[in-house]
């Protein structure tokens, strides 16, 4: 085992040095600018969709009689504009302790409640993630005005701004965090997988593979290559994260502290991001090494690249189903399917505070990394080095 690790280390050190000290690494460091730009555009579209799906509601604590004219006024307004454009209202019967009820409602996840409106015979109080003059405030004033117009002039509206984030807006923000996290993971992996394939081809065309295969086990070669690229990419991520944090610090008032916190907290999320990136990279990287090892020329790699990229996009799309619904059937399936698991679980980390699913997922993904690596090394020996006796699968079965 020590010799195996030492051999893998020799390969990894060579590859890491060759990668990081090359001029191409500068371009690698600049590469995220392009996907980030694309991610910004597509993320904006996605965020809008997410906003619509997860649109928070205003809880109206009022008797049925008091709520009826308000609901009618909202309905009129929605007809005049569009239902999506108007704040959603959900009626709750007043409880014995209104303060406790308000606190409970603001903590509700299903549905996510942005603010609580207490309505009682012409007396209105609004509390939650609202500010005087913002869209919710203005819409509610209009609705209440219309509701009371038949009986009297517009009633006074008292607004109380509560500084803490309400779960309603937090859910939305965390969905965005999950989406951005997944997107970064996806683009980073797709970038690195291509580099990994090219390196293996370079090695094969240099014939150095013969020298290496004579000295170290093929498994060690695979592991070494994977870890070299992983180390190079972690270095890249460190540079990118530092640059990103500095940028946010400069352009956003309050700096990085103002970013919406993921469900597991920032330190936990960053730690899981690194772990899931490593797992995602090793899972896809091991699969690509296996496929790439079968190619003998750059042209063959290019031919293979297109279906591989399509496959990655499909997996990314599958993993995206987790956002906003990590406990749905699709979400769980995406978390269980090895190739989409890291992306799905990162999204979960942004939205759900539990840690134990991550420990299980990391162990599960690790198992698959080992399995794919073993298979890859075996295929490489069989198909590239043409090693070992010819054994048919039906013969293997009969032996077993």
């Amino acid at each position, binding site marked *: 085992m020590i010799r195996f690790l030492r051999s893998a280390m020799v390969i990894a050190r060579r590859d890491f040095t060759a990668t990081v000290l090359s001029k191409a690494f500068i371009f690698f460091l600049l590469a995220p600018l392009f996907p980030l730009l694309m991610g910004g555009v597509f993320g904006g579209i996605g965020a809008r969709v997410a906003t619509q799906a997860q649109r928070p509601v205003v809880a109206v604590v009022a008797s049925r009689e008091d709520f009826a004219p308000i609901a009618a006024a909202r309905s009129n307004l929605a007809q005049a504009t569009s239902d999506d454009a108007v704040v959603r209202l959900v009626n709750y019967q007043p409880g014995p302790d209104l303060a406790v009820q308000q606190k409970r409602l603001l903590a509700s996840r299903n549905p996510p409640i942005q603010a609580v409106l207490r309505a009682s015979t012409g007396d209105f109080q609004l509390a939650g993630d609202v500010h005087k003059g913002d869209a919710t405030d203005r819409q509610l004033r209009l609705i209440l005005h219309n509701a009371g117009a038949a009986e009297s002039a517009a009633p006074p509206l008292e607004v109380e701004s509560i500084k803490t984030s309400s779960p309603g807006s937090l859910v939305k923000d965390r969905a965005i965090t999950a989406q951005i996290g997944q997107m970064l993971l996806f683009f980073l992996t797709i970038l690195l997988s291509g580099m990994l394939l090219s390196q293996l081809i370079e090695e094969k065309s240099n014939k150095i593979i013969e020298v290496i295969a004579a000295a170290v086990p093929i498994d060690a070669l695979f592991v070494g290559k994977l870890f070299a690229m992983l180390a190079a990419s972690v270095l890249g991520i460190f540079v990118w994260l530092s640059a990103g944090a500095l940028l946010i610090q400069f352009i956003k008032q309050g700096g990085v502290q103002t970013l919406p916190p993921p469900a597991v907290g920032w330190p936990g999320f960053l730690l899981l991001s690194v772990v899931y990136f490593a797992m995602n990279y090793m899972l896809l990287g091991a699969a690509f090494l296996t496929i790439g090892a079968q190619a003998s020329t750059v042209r063959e790699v290019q031919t293979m690249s297109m279906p591989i990229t399509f496959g990655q996009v499909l997996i990314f799309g599958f993993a995206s189903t987790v956002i906003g619904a990590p406990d749905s059937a699709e979400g769980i399936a995406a978390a269980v399917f090895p190739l989409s698991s890291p992306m799905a679980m990162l999204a979960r980390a942004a939205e759900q505070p539990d840690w134990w699913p991550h420990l299980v997922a990391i162990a599960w993904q690790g198992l698959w990394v080992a399995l794919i690596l073993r298979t890859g090394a075996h295929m490489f020996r069989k198909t590239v080095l043409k090693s070992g*006796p010819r054994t048919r699968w039906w013969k293997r079965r009969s032996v077993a």
Partner: protein
Amino acid sequence: MLRQVSQSAASSAIAVEAVDLVKEFDGTRAVDGVSLSVPAGSIYGLLGPNGAGKTTALRMLIGIIDPSSGSRRVLGRDRPLEAATEVGYLPEERGLYPSMHARDAIAFMGALRGLPLQEGRRRADALLDEHKLGDWARKPIRSLSKGMAQTVQLLGTIIHKPRLIVLDEPFAGLDAINQARLEELIRREARAGVTIIFSTHVIAHAERLCEQVAIIAKGKVAFDGGVDEARSRLRPIVRLGTRASDGPWRSAIPANARRDGSEWVFELPEGGPEPLLKALIDGGAGIETLAIERPGLHDAFVAIAGDAAAAAMGQDKSQ
């Protein structure tokens, strides 16, 4: 049932032993039951025409590929890769990282075989100086000539001071000067007790260097033994020049004797030179020139490899 490599290979007397090695590629038998035994500290030549199966046999011996059947034992180990730190290998198709510096390439090859990088760099500098490549130590491989790059790879093969060196067609692509240098390097390593196996289809190198050879043809070992033993398979050649064109002396030379210019050329008859000489003199040949030539390894190789190839082709036809 397959005969297994004997445990005696673990002893220092035998460095490499192979028994009935077979390798098939998509139904084609590239190596067909190769058995050989390489004494420790010897220079062992693997001779054969192109496509005979030499490279495949070597790749199996050092563990790059596993045989379809058969067994091998290298430096006392059944799994050749377990002895990797004590083995140096120069493949037929040379390969180095073009952007790597010469000393780093050598040190990297040593590191693959368990030599610490720092020590590898130190030894690389010394070896490059010794081979008059000191000025190129910190130059990338891509800036070296083909001969220089081959020397660098060869130095990478021996950097970790292996007990066994396997060289696949090491002289290919080298000019005469570098070939002579390589021969000297092989002799020096052998003097230091290192076992050397090399393959070649240029017999002159094997004749100058080897104590033992295996001749491979069509995937089979046609001959395995000492160089003198290979030569002795052929009878000496007689070159005879006579004043008389005909006479009783003609009965002393074989019927298949051929003319080469003014000389008769034929194999030395069973009885040896003395009865031949007597018959020629008594028969009035009027001997002008008489030379008895010992056959070279090349003649033996052509005879042995040619026979085996012919036999194998005969088998193919009969199937």
